């Protein structure tokens, strides 16, 4: 029976096209093509278009002409752009530190055994699951200059006597959006780090404990080094996302008051889409690229070093 089946299979040779796929080079090519096409269509093409746009004098309804680096020169001397660069770095830096610290803390707590663990873990993810625009609108009400529930509570508790101007004061407005970003980002850190924690064998901890290591020493010499590769990847993702954040700031402050909370993406949007200065908008979003590129390269190199250690 088996012999006849084999014979039948041999008798029916695969077509020439299929036979070519037996060559690994062709197979690799065939398997990679869809991804390459998608990347080309949705990443490379818009990117090249963006570069061309930033080198032109295009405005809405007017394709413009080639002007070289004039737009970049213009934004280089633009005081709002300077504020934007500073804001973006501050926003990304502060939120990443807090998200990592709080996320790690939460992950360590969730890694313990307690009743209702599964439910708590699911709930922790909520801020990350709710669409950003929706949750940001809820926060907008909480920080509302007139009706802030936070102010109301602080007032009732007797902690403040006048209203705190959350979104009207430039520093507080920045602090507000940082708080929301941290709130939204901590679950991502927590769950990913928790997954990392669970891959660490308990035997290592037991061995360290037998050797007399206290909890802090066990964390520092066992958990942290083993968690490092996962941590670095999470931080990398988070930095990229935060650096290019748009929705949160757009909904909360629209970049105001007086441009105090503009990030690269929101300022590019205001100029490009709002005012119709497409070329300048493109130049601003492209200005984000070298910064991000350097951050990503440094982090990837570091990850490689950690992994090959």
């Amino acid at each position, binding site marked *: 029976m088996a012999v006849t089946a084999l014979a039948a299979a041999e008798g029916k040779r695969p077509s020439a096209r299929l036979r070519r796929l037996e060559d690994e080079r062709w197979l690799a090519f065939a398997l990679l093509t869809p991804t390459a096409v998608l990347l080309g269509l949705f990443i490379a093409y818009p990117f090249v278009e963006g570069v061309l746009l930033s080198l032109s004098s295009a*405005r*809405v*309804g*007017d394709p413009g002409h080639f002007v070289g680096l004039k737009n970049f020169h*213009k934004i280089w001397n*633009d*005081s709002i752009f300077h504020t934007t660069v500073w804001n973006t770095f501050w926003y990304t830096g502060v939120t990443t530190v807090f998200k990592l610290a709080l996320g790690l803390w939460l992950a360590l707590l969730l890694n313990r055994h307690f009743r209702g663990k599964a439910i708590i873990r699911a709930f922790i993810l909520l801020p990350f699951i709710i669409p950003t625009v929706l949750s940001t609108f809820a926060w907008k009400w909480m920080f*509302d*200059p*007139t*009706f802030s529930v936070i102010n109301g509570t602080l007032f009732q508790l007797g902690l403040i006597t006048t*209203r705190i*101007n*959350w*979104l*009207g*004061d*430039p520093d507080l*407005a920045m602090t507000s959006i940082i708080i929301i970003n941290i709130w939204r980002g901590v679950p991502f850190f927590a769950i990913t780090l928790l997954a990392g924690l669970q891959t660490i064998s308990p035997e290592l901890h037991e061995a360290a404990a037998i050797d007399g290591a206290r909890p802090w020493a066990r964390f520092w010499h066992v958990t942290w080094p083993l968690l490092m590769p996962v941590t670095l990847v999470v931080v990398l993702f988070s930095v990229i996302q935060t650096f290019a954040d748009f929705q949160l700031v757009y909904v909360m*402050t*629209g*970049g*105001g*008051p*007086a*441009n105090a909370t503009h990030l690269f993406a929101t300022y590019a*949007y*205001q*100029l*490009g*889409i*709002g*005012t*119709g*200065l*497409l070329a300048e908008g493109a130049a601003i979003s492209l200005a984000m690229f070298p910064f991000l590129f350097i951050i990503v390269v440094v982090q990837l190199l570091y990850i490689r070093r950690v992994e090959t250690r």
Partner: protein
Amino acid sequence: MAKTKRRSVLKLAGGAAAASMGGMAAILATGRMPAFAQQRTVHWLKWVDFVPASDALLRKEMLPEAEKALGIKINLETVNGNDLQPRVTAGIQSGAGPDLIMAFNNQTYLYANSVVDLTEIAEAVGKAQGGMYKYARAVCSDGKMFMGMPWAVIGGMIAYRKSWFEEVGATKFPETWEQYREVGKKLKAKGRPIGQTLGHTFGDAPGFTYPYLWSWGGMEVDPSGKVIMSSKETLESVKFLQGFWKDAHDEGGLAWDDTNNNRAFLSQTVSATLNGASIYIETLRKPDQYKTEKGAPMHTDILHSPLPKGPAGQFGFHLLQSHMLMKYSKNQDPAKEFLKWIHTEKNFEKWFVSQKGFATPCTEKWEGHKVWTDDPVMAPFKVAARLGQAPGHAGPPNAKAAEALSKYIITDMYAKAVQGMPAEAAVKWADGELKKIYV
């Protein structure tokens, strides 16, 4: 078992479809969609009206009537006013989108290359309805073409609480900025400050900052287009507002959009605010919900006044709305038919009456309408379109003026100053930004 091939299935299905309705081949051969998909439609994008009754009137009554009269289906879409400009840009760049889009103020100049000339309709309506106001003409026409069909002016006046002003000794509304500051100081001391936005929002922010600047004698440019922002007059206006803000204003206003001041006024946390008539109209609509602290309906305690005078006079800058017919539109003829239809006196009146004075028409004939005499509280709005001045003054309200407005340069100058930037630095900043636009 016989093999069923993918191709044979397709052939079979195609044959069945062809048999039933002439087939895809027939459609492709004529190059036209079948007749049932050919109803004429116009996609109309406008702001969410601050008088909700007017949008309801359009949806429930007027647009079905238009469909009956013209055979055109109107798809009305409404979005927050701050989101209109992004939609225009997206439409023009992709070559597809709404056919008619509402523009605010001189935004029309930004899109002049991408819109259809509406001179014929605008002139006809102007002629039939007592002549078009100079303000509407300046904002919608560059002298060669009407880039937008003037729709209405949303007058901006200060809505204020009569009894609260009287309590601090102001029996009538202050006439000058100095007087307003004195009254405001007393009001703020009683926990009832003046509410004013200095945020990035289309209506109430520039509606205050532009006329405020003009009233002190400050101007963005001279008539030739030379930037003259950095002047003694501008500097004085900034210095005065720094003190005025601290003395008399609700400092939360820096973060407000066009809706926040309505809510603040209705919840009785501010005593006065520059606004369209939407606050008053809302209190009229819901007298049981909005009451004064003494229990009287709030609408009996609201009056309207133009902005006070400055050393150089008294000014207003009111939100002018027009409709642009986009060049990419494939429905230009039906869209024009619809514009003509809705601007006939009979039809426009229905909409105008539903606004109860919130919107002032762009032609003079309507000044005599009984809407203005029915309710004396609304009377100040009657002449909003007559007295309005266009952004970019003393130059023309062209694309450069529109760019300065879109970038909130004047508003940000004041916002920066009240946040603590020295007045000189704020003026210098604005002057520099304007010079980058007016090159």
